[in-house]
């Protein structure tokens, strides 16, 4: 039996400091036999391991290529806990462990032929960037692309040039919201739900991908439903304590669902009666 709990070695090719506490690791799997892990899908995650410290679940951001054209796996991380701070301290050339991919990603096939609406808050944009990049790489498979990103403070916005690039593409709407905006912020100041009201949605042919804090996702989903988007067309990416990533350790239970295995991306109707309940 192959053991899904065993990590593979990954080399840190490069490290990008995105903001004061957010960084991106560009990783290469060192063993040829481990390349199957590059089959990771937008919305899935890997467990990243710092030798002697521990593991954390990090959603997949993108697969890019190095100068030789070899695939590079990108993970964006906020240095906030014991393991993420230890990972933040690693320079290029260091080795880490990686196991995955785990969980259910965004419903790519179901989204084909539909308008795609990607609504994110804060670092929730990282798991959603993967589906935006996927949609632009396969542009003819999707209709209109709506992108809304909300941040607490305008200085928190990541990948600004990428959003500006997407905004210039045909059949694409990009809107940004900052709860607190510094002078010179060209976009909206306020909540993402206000921006959703302004979206030129075709509710009967739109699939929504949403990732961010739970109250923001819940408010967004309810606003979309008020705008006639069917609840089953709204998909949320959930987050809980995950240690084994295989539905065994019990920490990520959200009611009956194991977020690591049954999620992290799940349809809104499955979550609706539990979201916002205290202690779930």
């Amino acid at each position: 039996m192959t053991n899904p709990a065993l990590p593979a070695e990954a080399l840190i090719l490069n490290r990008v400091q995105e903001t004061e506490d957010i960084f991106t690791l560009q990783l290469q799997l060192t063993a040829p036999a481990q390349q199957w892990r590059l089959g990771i899908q937008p919305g899935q995650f890997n467990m990243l391991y710092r030798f002697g410290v521990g593991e954390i679940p990090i959603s997949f951001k993108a697969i890019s290529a190095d100068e030789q054209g070899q695939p590079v796996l990108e993970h964006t991380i906020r240095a906030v806990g014991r393991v993420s701070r230890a990972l933040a301290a690693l320079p290029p050339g260091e080795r880490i462990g990686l196991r995955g991919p785990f969980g259910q990603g965004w419903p790519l096939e179901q989204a084909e032929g539909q308008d795609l609406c990607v609504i994110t808050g804060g670092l929730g944009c990282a798991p959603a960037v993967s589906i935006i990049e996927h949609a632009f790489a396969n542009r003819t498979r999707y209709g209109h692309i709506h992108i809304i990103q909300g941040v607490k403070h305008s200085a928190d916005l990541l990948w600004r040039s990428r959003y500006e690039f997407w905004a210039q593409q045909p059949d694409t709407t990009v809107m940004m919201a900052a709860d607190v905006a510094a002078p010179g912020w060209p976009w909206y100041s306020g909540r993402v739900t206000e921006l959703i009201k302004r979206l030129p949605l075709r509710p009967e042919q739109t699939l929504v991908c949403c990732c961010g804090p739970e109250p923001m996702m819940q408010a967004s989903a309810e606003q979309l439903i008020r705008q006639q988007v069917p609840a089953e067309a709204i998909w949320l990416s959930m987050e809980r304590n995950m240690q084994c990533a295989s539905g065994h350790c019990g920490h990520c239970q959200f009611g009956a669902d194991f977020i690591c295995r049954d999620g992290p991306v799940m349809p809104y109707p499955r979550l609706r009666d539990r979201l916002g309940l205290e202690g779930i």
Partner: protein
Amino acid sequence: MHDYLPRAALPQLIQHLHRHGYTVLGPQVVDNAILYRPLADTDVLPTGIEQVQRPGEYRLIQTDSPRQFSWANGPQALKPLTFAPRETLWRSTLQTDGSLRFEEVLADARPTAVIGVRGCDLAALALQDQHFAADPYYRQRRDDLLLIAVDCSHPADTCFCASTGDGPAAEADYDLALTELDDGFLLRAGSDRGRAIMTALPLQPSREDQHRLADSQHRHACRQLRQLPAFDPAQLIQQGQHPAWDTVADACLSCGNCTSVCPSCFCFSESEVPELDGSSSDHQRQWDSCFSEGHSYIHGHHFRPDTKGRYRQWLTHKFGSWVEQYGRSGCTGCGRCISWCPVGIDPLQVLLQLGREPARTEK
């Protein structure tokens, strides 16, 4: 039918298992409790030992009965034998060139036979089998386990297996099951391995009066003080604001004893144990509890910061969402969580309160 083993011949069962390479575990009195420990011979079985179990209380009583299985259960079911309380999953080694090597660490599982297994614990093992079906660490221990049940004839006041449908007799998932009478045992096989063992024992024909006694003993054991109340499992999770949670949270110490003794609780945490010289690090797992502070922790936030939320998680999972996950409740009526709770909380009472309309409170 040759299915009766005189008590004097019980040592031959143990010897047979030893001869066939099994490590044999059997119930013994250790630190004033019944525990499964390596069994050299039958003279260390708890002869004449009976129990008093009540909320927050577990006591053994010495009687002059010749019986060796006239107790209900000990603090641990089969769980530690298949789901190790602590074990290393894998080891990473730092090579001199800075690279990392990962190796799987699987324990040496030895064929193990357990004598004196209870129906409630077999049912709980089946629940863990479902949960850990794809877990190689669990599977290697489970596959080498031979289970010899003894029907429970002396349920404790805390037991309610008859109402969950998991006891007092062993119903399924055993290799061999014994019904204890004063002078010996009626045997029935539940697997080919069990049938093979029966052919190797000096069995005698059983008598009709022995079967009548066994039936009467079983009917008596089914009359239990406690019963699982009727409730709607799908509704439990929606009752988060019921005042019953406040009442139980006022008493609960959040100590996790209930989850430690529960035969179906499966949560574990993973942690690193690095060598002091920095050359390698063991990635371990150990039993965790939804009552622990870290269980719901995620980058700076606790989803269940207080005892009320943790108790609610435990009860709504065990009796509610478990049904959605695995097709039945996660409780097999063993009653351990009642006996081993230091403040004597009885979850059946909490379920009863939840079944009642909450009293209106003045606002």
